[in-house]
């Protein structure tokens, strides 16, 4: 992001919202649990039936709500439970990737991984790796930035009261 980054405290740990498909990656995360593998606790998984369900707005919304990164997990190409939902998502992801880059987001903020139901260890590796990368990038803190931008806008607006109280999260329609 273009604005300056405030160095986070050493204890700071990034928050990752993960979208995992029910059949492969969610099951792999279950396997990581059953195998008692240990990984960074900053990740929060949302289960979708298929990575094809991933609406790009889910990614934007997660970032807007304060996630430092978004991880998308689907079945390996050719292994989709619904034949080709992961390919559909891949197309959308490519577009999303370019859009995010144009907006100034670092590539490491949003990551796509094919993880099969057997690859519990891959979940551990990917989450830990992404956590380290995001830790190096620092907090994204979009809610904070948005409220700051709103304040600036309100301050610049002619005749606006200087102490305009902007809501930290602006109202956005998802349609």
């Amino acid at each position, binding site marked *: 992001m273009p604005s300056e980054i405030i160095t986070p405290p050493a204890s700071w740990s990034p928050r990752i919202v993960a979208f995992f498909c029910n059949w492969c990656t969610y099951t792999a995360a279950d396997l990581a*649990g059953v195998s008692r593998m240990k990984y960074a606790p900053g990740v929060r998984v949302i289960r979708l039936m298929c990575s094809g369900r991933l609406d790009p707005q889910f990614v934007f919304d997660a970032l807007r709500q304060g996630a430092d990164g978004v991880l998308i997990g689907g079945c390996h190409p050719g292994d989709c439970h619904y034949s080709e939902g992961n390919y559909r998502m891949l197309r959308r992801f490519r577009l999303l990737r370019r859009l995010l880059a144009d907006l100034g987001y670092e590539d490491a903020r949003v990551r796509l991984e094919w993880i099969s139901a057997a690859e519990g260890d891959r979940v551990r590796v990917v989450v830990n790796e992404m956590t380290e990368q995001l830790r190096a990038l620092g907090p994204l803190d979009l809610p904070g930035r948005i409220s700051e931008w709103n304040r600036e806008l309100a301050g610049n607006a002619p005749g606006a009261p200087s102490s305009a109280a902007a809501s930290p999260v602006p109202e956005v329609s998802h349609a």
Partner: protein
Amino acid sequence: MNGTNHNGIRIGYYICHCGHNIAGVIDCGEVARRIGVLPGVVVSRDYKYMCSEPGQELLRQDIRAHDLNRIVVASCSPLLHEHTFRTAVEDAGLNPYHFQMVNIREHASWVHTDHAAATEKAVDLSRAAVMRVRHHRALTTTRVPINPAVLVVGGGIAGIHAALTLANAGKQVFLVEREPSIGGHMAKFDKTFPTLDCAACILTPKMSSVRAHKGITLWTYSEVAKVEGYVGNYTVTVRRRPRYVNEALCIGCQECISACVYREPKFPDEFNVGLGKRKPVYIPFPQAVPQVVVIDPDRCLELKTGRCKKTCVDACADRNAIDFTQKESLEQIQVGNIIVATGFRLFDAKRIPQYGYGMYPNVVTSLELERLVTSSGPTGGEIRLRDGSAPRSVGFILCVGSRDLKTNRWCSRTCCMHSMKLAQLVREHTGADVTVFYLDIRAPGKGCEEFYDRSLKEGIQFVRGRVAEVTDWALAPEEEGKLVIRVEDTLAGFVRRIPVDMIVLAVGMEPQSDAQSVRRLFNMSCGTEGWFLEKHPKLAPVSTFTDGVFIAGCCQGPKDIPDSIAQAGAAAAEAMALIDRGYIEQEPNTAHVLDDCCGCKSCIPLCPYTAISFDAGSQKAVINEALCKGCGTCAGSCPSGSITQNLFDDDEVFSEIEGLLHA
């Protein structure tokens, strides 16, 4: 608690301790307190075991006493107990889909060591579920009828047992086998451990029953080419390779074999793992089922050159069973369930060159020795070295291609017992000195430890240590003309050289070479080693992630005959449980088009099931609910947000995201 005035939403939240599994890491009381103050939450409790009957009863009582209309349970994976809790919620009079499960065991307590961070994560995940569950709508499942026919893939002992079990229960079964005969690996065995009863005596009656059973359609020399549909209603295409013999007309008299222009058997015989010879027209083994000859197109003069005297056709005479014009055919069948029992392949001993397989003729695999021991085998049951003499000393090397970081890490489970069985047979047949080189003797089955004791008493020597190499380089007079096994005897503590006449490599089991394509065909998963993955290692050992597809036998992992049969029976029972209910209840996570669809048609080519069509009258997309499998790809890509997916609606997912991130 904040029970009042949230549009009538009254949420009950329950966090499970799962004994120490969750409570050992996550402060459940703290989570319950923090979730209890969220808007709409009327009841918030922590409890030792939510899935237990008292736990479920607690839920049901609260629903009635507090008039709850939404339930959230934070415990294990929804893949494990979502169904349990939905049923409990339904029993108490709620719609089962007014429920949301939070996975804080597999996804939190089991994978994090930091108690505070794990507790924080449990709060976030629970808050997300509480915020999501408000948007849940009452849904009803649809019931679709189930086709009572079952496809069994693979005609080894597991496939045979599954097919017979189902057919005996009155179900229609299609049994598809790739080889010209059913029987699989078991048909090649002489005797079975630990009882030393003859494999053929217990297997061939079952094979005959398959042939005779009216309920079983047996297709050998055939492979599944395509699988479409879903549980209850699969359409399967089977590719039937030409055997150049009409199965309906061949009576198995084998006169064509004697009449073949090749007077003597000339080609390596697959059934005897290349130790015997066969003709281009052959029957795989005497007890083969079906008793129908096969013509090998790569060997048959007529099929290769078209210029053979065709003495076989003359011998067949008016039976007219031989048909050189036969072509590959595709058959389509409708089944409700599929049992995959495609078995294993043996480790290729050439991959460990220091054991000399393929280099020294008297180094053989355990299966080759099995064929030598069998009275119906190429030597008529005589154990012979390549020069025709009887061995005076035999060494067995265990764990060849098992428990080895360089090849396969897993234990193949049967080789210890199999080798001890062969060792006893070698002693019985030849009186030779037998030495077994082992890492650990694994004899855990019923009667197996006793069999090990018996092997020791029969004078079989056991040397503990992984064999370093096999060589014919004699360093001492007694080693002349022998194969020398060099091994560190880890019990005696020094390196030994042991000369023997014959070496048997106890090769391990591996997934079939085409396991990956078979897995894709049936929409299954494989573990990292390549064995087909069961739905749950303990609770659903024969189910897969695809409903209506079951696995049995060694395609799921190495196992012995009793275990294969137990799994086959279990898979048959699982299929029958579905069939006898008569219908499948489909998860109502289908997609629906909303009124504001603008008719752009971009969703139509995205659907893998062609469930979406365009209605010219209303100028909108329409989803056929019966075809929709609920992946949500259309909902994720609709440019105008006009497609919604039940249980994964935009409102539900967005509120889940918000709940995760807003403390």
